[in-house]
């Protein structure tokens, strides 16, 4: 580390793919709380779902001479050049949630999205008792979270007795989740379960079922991200589970390691820390 700023406060740049995903809203809030406890402040940048903007944001962090950078990169490779640039400038970098394809970061704290997809598939298999059919709502085509969650889900489903009726993209969006599900209810009226690759989409799908005369309580439903809204639906019995990746915990651990590194030069014992994603079936 290059020491603390003149007033003694540690300033940490934090960049996430987009605050349009409640997951990152939660992560940001909990990170700010954690930072405050550690005596650090967060300088925050929203990449607005654009890798190029995120790269620029990191360059701006470097230009400001921040003490450390906490980043959840848009894609595994695109941010590697700027991350390495930051490290070369003496700024420690930690990645959270999504990993970057470089060994220069101080630490990665994440929950594997592929593992999360697997967990969701296992939950459905268990609930359906090993047979039945499921509809999958994918995220934005090409987004890494979408690819990984789908990959894990498909992998486990392939070895089970459950049919995946169809897999359509609803772009991580609640309104799209609703319209796509409305359409799919027409085409596949006899489904047993729905997997939404984020909570927004599964909530949209539940609203679609309720509006189309299908009782969501009779279906197995699982989302992803453990947002407050998802817990509200769980409490109502409309949603069965959501995969929790503990964004606050991820950010908190990464911040702790960054601050330790700045203050004492300490490096973490492991450079990759995984928090196992779990299906949660009741509000915390």
């Amino acid at each position, binding site marked *: 580390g290059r020491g603390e700023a003149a007033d003694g406060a540690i300033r940490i740049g934090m960049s996430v793919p987009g605050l*349009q995903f409640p997951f990152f809203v939660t992560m940001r809030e909990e990170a700010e709380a954690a930072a405050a406890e550690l005596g650090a402040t967060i300088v925050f940048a929203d990449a607005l779902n654009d890798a190029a903007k995120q790269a620029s944001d990191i360059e701006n962090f470097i230009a400001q001479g921040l003490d450390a950078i906490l980043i959840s990169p848009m894609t595994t490779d695109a941010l590697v050049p700027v991350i390495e640039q930051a490290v070369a400038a003496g700024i420690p970098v930690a990645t959270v949630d999504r990993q970057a394809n470089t060994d220069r970061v101080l630490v990665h704290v994440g929950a594997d999205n592929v593992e999360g997809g697997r967990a969701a598939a296992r939950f459905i298999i268990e609930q359906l008792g090993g047979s039945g059919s499921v509809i999958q709502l994918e995220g934005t*085509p090409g987004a890494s979270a979408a690819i990984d969650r789908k990959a894990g889900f498909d992998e486990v489903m392939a070895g089970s007795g459950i049919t995946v009726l169809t897999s359509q993209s609803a772009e991580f969006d609640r309104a799209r989740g609703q319209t796509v599900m409305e359409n799919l209810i027409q085409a596949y009226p006899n489904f047993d379960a729905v997997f939404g690759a984020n909570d927004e989409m599964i*909530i949209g799908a539940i*609203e679609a079922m309720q509006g189309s005369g299908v009782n969501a309580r009779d279906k197995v439903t699982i989302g992803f991200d453990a947002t407050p809204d998802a817990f509200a639906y769980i409490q109502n019995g409309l949603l069965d589970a959501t995969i929790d990746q503990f964004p606050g915990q991820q950010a908190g651990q990464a911040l702790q390691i960054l601050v330790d590194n700045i203050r004492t030069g300490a490096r973490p014992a492991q450079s990759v820390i995984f928090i196992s994603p779990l299906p949660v079936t009741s509000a915390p």
Partner: protein
Amino acid sequence: MKLDVKHILKTYGIFLAFLLICIILAILSPVFLRWNNILNVIRQSSIYGVMAVGMTFVILSGGIDLSVGSVLALSGIIAAGAATAGVGIFGIVALGLLVGVLCGLFNGLMITLGKITPFVITLGMMSIARGLTLIYSGGRPISGFEGAFRFIGGGFILGIPFPIVILAVTVLIGWLVLTQTRLGRYTYAIGGNEETVKLSGINSNFYKTMVYVISGLTSAMSALILTSRLNSGGPNVGQAYELDVIAAVVIGGTSLSGGRGSVWGTLVGALMISVINNGMNLLGINPFFQLVVKGVIIIGAVFLDRLRDQAN
């Protein structure tokens, strides 16, 4: 004979293209023509459709409104906030619409009095309204409403989903206003040649402002439908809607340079976008290919319609 085909294509080009798409889908998927699916598609198009009616006014006047998606979000989140705070149904609706009207009024006044081009001012409003939505909501959806408000997006009247009723009424009123009132005729005239309108002793600034107010109003109407339908107002709803809404208007044959077009074309344009999405879902087309198919269909449909333009 040749003339007849030309005449039909000339007047109904996009409508025929739309029918063709429907026929092909009906053949490919037995589900497509089921009553429930038809209601589905129309209900889904109601969000874009209602906004596109307002956008038709704007584009006819020679302008553009990029802020519709963000205004929808702001209006929706404020309605959602009111709903969860226990405000009555009339209060919610009034508040939601008021937000849209105010945003539109701001756009209109900046364009007419501030003399800023519509593209820039509505681009700015797009950013501002989205920011306000995020600030108001803290970035989180506001969810869970009472019965009366839920009716707007989820209710039925004589078996017809209420959003469809709203869409139908909006298109009808839009058509009446455009053809039977001064506001409507001046909208066309301003898009055709604003200088002439001014030199005809008409307060064109007033009417131009009204056009953006209407667009704000229809965005707010869509916001109420969407918020009620989703049972939640979200800070991110409506992103990139401007493109789809403008597309519905332009596909429907309204000229982006103003002065020419109709609200019926817009309705067909909005339905077409919904039908394409619905059809691709029903057919289970690979999401990657969906994008290609959608692009090709839109170009193809308008290609059919171009015969109309050529005749002019």
